[in-house]
């Protein structure tokens, strides 16, 4: 938590920048400046009763005056009684839609006299991710740890050339639990510009802060003025308030040991009876990175291509080896997903693979809630509750 007094933030490059204030026109100018700099600006926009990320050219493309109401298994858009530009949180998509788009061509192959040759795909556009929430900025950093060390030829250039305009959260959804994951509701690093929208007492302004040299340059091109102390305090207070409002919490203390020790907990089978293995949670998760490749061939056999697409540990095929799938039950597949995210991720990448965005809760068709399932495992911890006691028996027979 930051102090409730105005202060200046140091950018990632060490330079200290004072918070600026812009209005809606200033936000339009910001989008315009990014377009001028050659970015394809992608941001939230309403598509079919849902907020999805798409190309935007002005604030008119944003879901102005819209809020989202989210609960386990529920996502609804409603009208607000104000003109907030960012009065909602996260929809089903995350920025992995652009950083590892499903259906990306890895390479094309052409038959030649010496077998074949492979050709790398064309460079994608440079993206400006506009309106990235702190949880999603944290998710991008988590995916960096997966992809950047491996040079897959696709991710690095997309990521390194991207520009991030983060938006601090002031009104969390009931499915949000970023505060307990330490990833929000304010953005700490990994952004070029951070905005905080303030809408109260007839005022409507945006606190704009640079997080990189390029962010500083972009802000310098706008007609922005230095923020007054009370404007900064008001903005900070809204974000602090958001942390207090968060409806959900995931206890991370001793999480890895808890989950590793509970692989044989009969409760997984109980979750497996509810889980439809639909893969929604993995598709909407901003950190889930599992993928598969499809090899395609032209009808005449002269050319081929390899396409990468998202995969999910909830499918039977995912763990198939000759003879059968390793994880044949839904409970084992849920266990793999949750244990990977919260426990083995820590062994693999030294971080937890969950940022608390709550998407998997809202988009689960049967409303399975990761925070509740972790709490249930904690309650039924087989290190403390021996198998055969009523609580475990009850769980196994439910």
């Amino acid at each position, binding site marked *: 938590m930051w102090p409730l007094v105005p202060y200046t933030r140091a950018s990632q490059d060490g330079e200290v920048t004072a918070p600026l204030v812009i209005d809606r026109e200033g936000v339009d100018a910001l989008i315009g400046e990014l377009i001028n700099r050659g970015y394809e600006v992608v941001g939230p926009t309403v598509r079919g009763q849902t907020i999805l990320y798409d190309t935007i050219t002005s604030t008119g493309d944003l879901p102005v005056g819209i809020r989202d109401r989210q609960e386990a298994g529920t996502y609804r858009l409603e009208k607000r009684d104000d003109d907030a530009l960012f009065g909602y949180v996260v929809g089903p998509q995350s920025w992995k839609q652009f950083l590892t788009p499903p259906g990306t061509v890895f*390479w094309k192959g052409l038959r030649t006299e010496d077998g074949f040759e492979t050709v790398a795909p064309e460079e994608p556009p440079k993206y400006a991710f506009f309106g990235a929430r702190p949880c999603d900025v944290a998710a991008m950093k988590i995916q960096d740890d997966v992809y950047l060390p491996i040079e897959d030829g696709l991710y690095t250039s997309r990521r390194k050339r991207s520009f991030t305009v983060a938006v601090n959260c002031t009104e969390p959804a009931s499915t949000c639990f970023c505060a307990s994951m330490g990833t929000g509701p304010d953005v700490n690093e990994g952004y070029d510009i951070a905005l905080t929208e303030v809408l109260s007492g007839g005022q409507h302004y945006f606190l704009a802060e640079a997080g990189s040299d390029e962010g500083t340059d972009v802000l310098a091109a706008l007609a922005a003025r230095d923020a007054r102390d009370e404007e900064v305090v008001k903005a900070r207070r809204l974000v602090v308030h958001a942390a207090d409002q968060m409806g959900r919490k995931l206890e991370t203390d001793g999480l890895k040991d808890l989950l590793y020790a509970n692989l044989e907990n009969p409760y997984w089978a109980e979750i497996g009876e509810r889980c439809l293995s639909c893969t929604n949670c993995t598709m909407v998760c901003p950190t889930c990175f599992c993928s598969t490749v499809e090899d395609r061939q032209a009808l005449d056999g002269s050319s081929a291509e390899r396409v990468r697409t998202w995969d999910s540990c909830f499918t039977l095929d995912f763990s198939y080896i000759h003879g059968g799938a390793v994880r044949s039950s839904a409970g084992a597949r849920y266990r793999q997903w949750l244990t990977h995210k919260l426990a083995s991720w820590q062994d693999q990448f030294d971080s937890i693979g969950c940022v608390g965005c709550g998407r998997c809760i809202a988009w689960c068709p049967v409303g399975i809630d990761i925070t509740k399932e972790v709490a249930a495992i904690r309650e039924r911890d087989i290190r403390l509750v021996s198998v055969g006691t009523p609580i475990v028996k009850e769980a196994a027979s439910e």
Partner: protein
Amino acid sequence: MHPVPCRVHSVVRELEDTFTLELDPPGDGWEFAPGQFTMLYAFGIGEVPISISGDPSDSSRIVQTIRAVGPVTDALTAVSPGDFVGVRGPYGTSWPTGSAEGRDLLIITGGIGLAPLRPAILEVLDHRDRYDNITLLYGARSPGELLFAEELQEWRGRFDLEVLITVDRGDQVWRGPVGVVTSLIGRASFDPESAVAFVCGPEIMMRFTIQELLSRGFTDDRLHISMERNMKCGIGLCGHCQLGPFFVCKDGPIFRCSEMGDTCWTREV
């Protein structure tokens, strides 16, 4: 991430459904460590992980033994000399042959599991004086399904290598043991206090083998196994091969049992 085309030098049919491909390596040579694998690509059809079965001291060929069990392995085994297949790799960890120097080495395998162990066998035989007793225990379904049968005959004729073979079902001329490969362990000569074991086969076979060796005084830091999981990338990116905290493609496929921990043996993990 791009497969490199390699010319098929020869194709040998080992068994009904199992073939060994010899490929001309790209560039000047080819180096790998015993137990490693490559991702082999059939143009336009797909890519699969295949263990390398060649001699590690021979850098002039890439040798891979493939069982045809699906569309990609069908295509890979249908090639003729002069055709091209794509190769990525070698990837993964290797059999720690050095850790067995000055000790007895026990190699226990079943079925096509002999293929990824062949490079290790060739390597230790190349430096035979560095090891004490070397024993190969091999199990196959039937006498007709013994992989590398001619080479097994040759190895069996050596005085410095003990080869014991069992089959699940004998035939009229089979005079050897019938039963699971673990039943051969009692007939091998090794010092359980210091010997090193390399094990590769179906997971259930490896489990029982480990149990048997541990009950005979082995410790799990001298037990090494080769794990199989679904793989799409071979470099720790696609997520398919996860086994507890490990990516089998880069943290394995060869694991020291003491480093795996119990979690890896949990059902359906």
